[in-house]
């Protein structure tokens, strides 16, 4: 049975998880000489502070519904941050244990937030990054299938489905059907793939942004050419692919804070850089997804 938005709403009724989604859409006012209008969808307004609340909630409810998550099974996934915090929060509310595999030396905020929600954290070699964490999560899931419900955000169809049935329709409704482009970064690719499924049939052009370099600081994004490829990723889901340098994304995150009062994380800055490139040449109404807030990076050198 395919999960529906109604079923998810029903499952979380009366809890903080009712607040996942329906995030604000705001115009950007400080950019001039563009051919298109820019709007940002601020996913930091989700209760767990990022866009990952959507996928986490849907993946957990889907696993409950299809029987993969029952009894005393523990939710398991590999994450360098926001998904871990989101899964930890969802697990706390819905009564599931959560185990997160993260590269060692992830920022303090991430470890502490996930732990605050009661998650157990397993650290892997920091030099192997997120891909090393994925491999360790796979190993654990294969070794103890009776113990874990491995959600695997990189392969889980409930991840893009959350965006197809919530993020996409929200954007359509908030713009009263006037959106012409959707811009977001690609990490698991759930956002781009799901929103593409919802809005492309309505004529919306989909723009997917990636880090320009393998070594980058656009947290949550993947440099696809050098990383483990998510099973849910399909290049054809996007009409335009843009490569964004980290420095440009960081500079834009600072600019958004100072000129728009929007405290975005580095990937949000990167997504706006991608949108500006489009807005310089194509007319229309562009919606950019800002995945999280800058608060999540305060202990890193990004805001020094």
């Amino acid at each position, binding site marked *: 049975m395919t999960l529906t938005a109604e079923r998810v709403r029903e499952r979380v009724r009366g809890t903080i998880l009712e607040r996942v989604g329906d995030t604000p859409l705001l115009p950007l006012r400080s950019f001039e000489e563009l051919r298109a209008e820019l709007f940002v969808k601020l996913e930091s307004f989700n209760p767990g502070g990022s866009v990952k609340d959507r996928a986490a909630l849907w993946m957990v409810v889907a696993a409950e519904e299809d029987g993969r998550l029952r009894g005393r099974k523990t939710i398991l996934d590999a994450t360098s941050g926001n998904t871990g915090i989101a899964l930890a929060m969802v697990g706390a509310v819905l009564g599931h244990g959560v185990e997160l595999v993260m590269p060692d030396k992830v920022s*303090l905020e991430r470890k502490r937030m996930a732990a605050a929600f009661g998650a157990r954290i397993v650290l892997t070699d*920091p*030099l192997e990054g997120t891909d090393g964490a994925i491999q360790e999560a796979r190993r654990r899931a294969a070794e103890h299938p009776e113990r874990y419900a491995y959600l695997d955000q990189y392969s889980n169809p409930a991840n893009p489905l959350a965006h197809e049935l919530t993020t996409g329709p929200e954007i359509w409704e908030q713009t009263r059907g006037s959106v012409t482009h959707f811009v977001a970064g690609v990490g698991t690719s759930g956002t781009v793939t799901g929103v593409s499924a919802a809005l492309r049939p309505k004529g919306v052009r989909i723009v997917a942004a990636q880090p320009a370099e393998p070594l980058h600081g656009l947290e949550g994004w993947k440099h696809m050419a050098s990383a483990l490829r998510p099973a849910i990723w399909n290049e054809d889901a996007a009409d335009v692919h843009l490569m964004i340098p980290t420095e440009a994304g960081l500079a834009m995150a600072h600019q958004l804070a100072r000129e728009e009062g929007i405290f975005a994380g580095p990937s949000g800055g990167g997504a706006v850089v991608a949108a500006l490139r489009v807005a310089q040449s194509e007319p229309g109404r562009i919606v950019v997804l800002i995945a999280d807030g800058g608060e999540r990076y305060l*202990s*890193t050198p990004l805001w020094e």
Partner: protein
Amino acid sequence: MAVTVRLPGALRDAVGGDNKVTADGRTLGEVFADIERRHPGFRERVLDEEGRLRTYVNVYIGETDARTSGGLDAPVPQGSEVMVIPAMAGGVR
């Protein structure tokens, strides 16, 4: 003075594919300069135009974050291990 520098997957192409290199130097800056001599282009991957550590690159000398111990002037004791880590999976411990 030889030290071992361990590199993340995203930097291995800069040194011919290895996950670690041996380098000489008394400070982090000297160690990076030594790697640059043998692998031109390495330095610009980890340092910005002003020669500072890129904000999205973290370096640990043993267990110590190099940013807290002098940055590129941080002393690198002989035989120690240096780790270069992307900040996307990093931060301050």
